């Protein structure tokens, strides 16, 4: 009891001492320039998360107020090619959307600012006299216009114009980033499509040939295998989500292995050891099956017999999947080539790319192989990653 009390009192004393020191120290003086700089920086960063989602009415509405702070204009509007997305500035609601569009339409050049200094508004008391039209350009293509409206009888100062131009560049850059992100996602989907297109021919041929062999000797077996084959293709070409649970993927691997068994019979030995805790982990679809297919192709097919092991371990917040074969193996240079995408095999490179697109560079594949001693491919993934969801 006394010890607890002592610790508490000591802690409280230390905390009070620090607090007192902070109070005594003279407050730091922030100059007006620094303050202005801070405000501008704050407004600029505040636009980031919204514009990262692309240019839409919603993101425009959330950023346009900050853009007004940045440009110091009376009013600011964001316009895309067809409509006014958002508008900020009090007292100018009497300007119809059509007027804005008409104004934006006057900006004919994509690569430079345009200043409209004679704007005559019929509305009484409307102070707007001039406007700066700044195009928003992403990858050489114009996606919209930033309109900044200023008051006053005098011409705009060059500083004001330049600020609007810089703000427009900022918006353009952020939109370009958003575009890039969307593209990498499309790329991941395209890679899945590519994998679907290329996994099967080799295997389809072998599987069908094996099934054909059973039709006379045991028609029942042949029918079952054909059913398996049908389900196998159904899974491979389903299209809703690029992610599945490990349980689903393993189920698919099992179908695949059953078809391979039809060919190899007892010469293909398969061992599985998967912790039940990891079965609900979510991973890119068709990312385990190519590893198993690889193991069968390189480990078993060439020698006509062999062993494949699939091991799933529960490691804290991560999942570790290993596919081992006792086949011919390869040297480390070739393994590195495959993972970096320079090798000839498409399967593993594709899986590696999709894993890292989903989970980042800290996760993915590792190949450990010795020529003649077999190959182990290790895949690591997190148990949860926001946005990665099965079905």
């Amino acid at each position, binding site marked *: 009891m006394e010890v607890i009390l002592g610790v508490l009192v000591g802690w409280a004393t230390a905390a009070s001492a620090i607090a007192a020191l902070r109070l005594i120290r003279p407050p730091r003086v922030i100059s007006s320039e620094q303050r202005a700089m801070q405000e501008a920086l704050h407004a600029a960063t505040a636009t980031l998360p919204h514009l990262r989602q692309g240019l839409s009415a919603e993101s425009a509405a959330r950023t346009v107020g900050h853009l007004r702070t940045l440009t110091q204009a009376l009013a600011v509007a964001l316009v895309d090619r067809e409509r006014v997305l958002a508008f900020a500035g009090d007292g100018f609601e009497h300007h119809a959307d059509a007027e804005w569009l008409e104004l934006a339409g006057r900006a004919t050049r994509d690569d430079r600012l345009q200043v409209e200094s004679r704007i005559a508004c019929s509305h009484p008391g409307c102070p707007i006299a001039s406007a700066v039209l700044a195009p928003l350009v992403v990858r050489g293509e114009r996606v919209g216009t930033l309109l900044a409206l200023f008051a006053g009888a005098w011409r705009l100062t060059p500083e004001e114009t330049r600020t609007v131009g810089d703000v427009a560049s900022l918006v353009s850059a952020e939109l370009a980033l958003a575009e890039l992100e969307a593209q990498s996602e499309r790329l991941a989907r395209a890679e899945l499509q590519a994998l679907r297109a290329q996994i099967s021919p080799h295997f389809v041929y072998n599987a069908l040939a094996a099934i054909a062999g059973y039709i006379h000797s045991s028609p029942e077996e042949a029918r079952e295998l054909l059913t398996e084959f049908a389900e196998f293709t159904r899974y491979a070409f389903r299209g809703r989500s690029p992610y599945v649970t490990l349980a689903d993927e393993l189920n698919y691997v099992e179908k695949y292995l059953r078809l391979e068994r039809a060919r190899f019979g007892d010469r293909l030995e398969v*061992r599985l*050891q998967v912790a*039940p805790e990891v079965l609900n982990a979510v991973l890119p679809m068709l990312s385990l099956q190519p590893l198993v297919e690889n193991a069968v192709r390189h480990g078993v097919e060439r020698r006509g017999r062999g062993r494949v092991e699939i091991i799933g371990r529960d490691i*804290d*917040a991560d999942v570790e999947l290993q596919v081992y074969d006792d086949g011919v193996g390869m040297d480390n240079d070739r393994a590195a080539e495959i993972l970096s995408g320079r090798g000839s095999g498409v399967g593993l490179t594709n899986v590696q790319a999709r894993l890292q697109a989903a989970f980042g560079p800290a996760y993915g594949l*590792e190949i450990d192989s010795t020529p003649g001693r077999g190959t182990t491919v290790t895949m690591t993934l997190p148990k*949860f990653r926001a946005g990665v969801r099965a079905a």
Partner: protein
Amino acid sequence: MIALAAIGAVTLGTLGLGAWGVRFVRTTSDLLVASRAVTAWWNAAAISGEYLSAASFLGIAGLELQLGASALWQSLGFTAGYLALLLFVAAPLRRFGSYTIPDFVEARLNRSWIRPLASAIVILISGFYLVPQLKAAGLALQVVTAAPYWVGVAAVAAIVTINVAIGGMRGITYVQAVQFWIKVFAISVPACVLLIHFGGLPGRAALFGDQLPRAPHTLVVRLPAATRAQFPQTATIEIGGRDLTVAGGTVRTLPARVPIVIGRGTVVPVAEGTTPQTGATWSRAVGGTSESSPVLVYSLLIATFLGTMGLPHILVRFYTNPDGHAARHTTVRVLSLLGLFYTFPAVYGALGRVLTPQLYLTGQADSVVLELPRAAWPGTVGTLLGALTAAGAFAAFLSTSSGLLVSLAGTISHDVWPRLRRERQAGMSVRRLRFRVAAIVAMVAPALLALVARSIDIAILVGWAFAIAASTFCPMFLLGIWWTGLSARGAAAGMVAGATIATASIFTGLTLGGGQATIIGALLAQPALVSVPIAFVVMVGVSLRDRESVRGSDAMLALHAPEGLGLRLAEDDLDVPAEVAPRRM
């Protein structure tokens, strides 16, 4: 000696089970059998196994002995917490797919800056919860082998750390499920045997009537330290061979390490701080003494009822459920399994009051489950039963503290460490090494605190962990799952407010010393009644004011949309045996 052997067997069994737990399955079709073997019952037993800690195994009976039937509210709350979890959290959380609480907080609120806050609270709760486990371990080893208190603390801390650091928690579902049944066996068999031996509850007057606990036979007590004892009635006791008659209502200091003989039928003196109670007040559920005042009881109920859903080591167990539906099924089974277990601690408290009243004098009420069998039934049977409860208690420390340490080490190695080093991308081997180092580091502080917190009841220490969980993660889960308007800033403000108020009250209460006579005293001892509503109000208030609040519609869909909107191919396939005719497609 037998007890030590039983403890050793349980410990080695736990370590060995982890290694043996996942064994090779030879054929592919066995995989499906193996994956489906984790049924709702297995999962439920695993969750219960991880959940039943020293507080449940030793603490509740000890508190019941000391305070009376009002202590049983705690076991009620420990169980009812799963009702709250079942109703509001289990299924949506499983659908969401998150593994740890920081995972959920970050993904639901869509802000990365809130993750360190959630991690800090996870560390706080796990740390608070780990202290009583170690304290109980020290106590148990002291009772069983007469070793000094610190030996048990150090031994269990070391065993658990080594086990977690070398990765002995593989196959955790099976290990924890087996642990659960070990605990049920270890607590139910001695209780039943003793009840049969005594033909029901003996000494009913001291339990329900107007009697104070009296020595059932001549008791010889040696106090570990000089103790101020209160004599509720005039009694004659023999100290070191000299008779001493003390008038009722007076307080005397009794010497340490001298045999004190209390004759059969003499009313046993109680250590100062414990209220002597007649059977009638002892068996009152509410309001018998100041320690069972309605405020305290309700505060404790709120803490346990709402705190369970915020325990970091419990929520990760739900990840093993395949979907929200299974999560609900599991939770219902957890309720029944815990209900089964919590029937028995009450028996020990009641029997202990009649058969081992000397614990009132020594002040070591927490050891009643361990001491009762030997004291009540001297001889081989009592020794064997005592060994059984000691082994069960060790199973309780090991499983709960392993789960807690995994949570702690995981949070430190995943969230704290990369932030300190300003790097997030580290390979698998680096992450694994960090986890091991973190496991060792994380055990140091709780072990030291356990050495300090020797005099505080286990059940009260655990109550604090629950109070903090109820004031932080519970509002975050309830609002985050059921209200679209919760903003990150609101959640952060509410969690900080709840954690600060709960922790501050607990430490203030500690500093002022355990006077719970007033309402303020009761709230300082168990602050949930105040801190939980404040956390809710702050969360809602700040979220409403927060104009930047992001409506988490995607997250809401993930939480509440039933599975099967997507294609659940694998599930259909699992249900169809291979022999059936060709599939219609």
